[in-house]
């Protein structure tokens, strides 16, 4: 079970972040691998956000990585509800060997220091310990709980 432990000089300011590698959806990864082609990926700084039920990334990344919209679902934010499009992608947390398929939204994060919000769709396979007093946090990825 991969365990990623971090300390931050000022966890209150930075939030709980970790490196996330973003990939195309798994069928595309396998297709490219079968064709012996390079699988595109992008390393991002992710913010663990327990207030987000779903993961989302900075919108320009979708075009950069040629992601394609394949679903639309309802979203509720403090200002109300709307129907928004989703991309099928895959993510790898830090140095984990597991690539997790998810659906993710694209939204503007350009003024933020991170590129991807890690939502509870990913966290459902994790245990998170956040110690503000100690400026430390740890994320345990339960690989057996990754369902795909």
């Amino acid at each position, binding site marked *: 079970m991969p365990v990623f432990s971090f300390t931050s000089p000022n966890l209150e300011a930075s939030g709980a972040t970790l490196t996330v590698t973003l990939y195309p*959806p*798994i*069928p*595309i990864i*396998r*297709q490219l691998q079968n064709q012996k082609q390079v699988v595109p990926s992008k390393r991002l700084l992710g913010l663990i*956000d327990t*207030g*987000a*039920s*779903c993961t*989302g990334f900075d*919108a320009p990344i*979708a075009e950069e990585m*040629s992601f*394609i*919209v*394949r*679903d*639309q*679902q*309802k*979203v*509720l*934010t*403090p*200002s109300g*509800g*709307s129907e*928004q*499009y989703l991309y*099928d992608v895959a993510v790898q947390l830090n140095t984990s060997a597991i690539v997790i*398929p998810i659906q993710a*939204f*694209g*939204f*503007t994060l350009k003024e933020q220091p991170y590129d991807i919000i890690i939502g509870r769709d990913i966290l459902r396979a994790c245990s998170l310990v956040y110690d503000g007093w100690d400026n430390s946090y740890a994320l345990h990825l339960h690989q057996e709980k990754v369902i*795909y």
Partner: protein
Amino acid sequence: MLEKELEIFEKEKAKLREENPSGGYVVIKGKEILGIWNDRQDALKAGIEKYGNVSFLVKDIDESNNHVNTFSRDFIFAN
């Protein structure tokens, strides 16, 4: 994006649920319903093999699984 596909889904979803009581993921491109798969990744794979890496809809036919996505802050969504 996906307007036609979403329209077809809304029109056919009752029938899809009746014919597939255990649920599944439907693939729709244009007016064509390609089929239903138990696993979303299998549905995606089937759509990509049939149409290529282009736009098509992959939708969970079971409304109870279509939870509402919530964020505790506002975002400007891309599309």
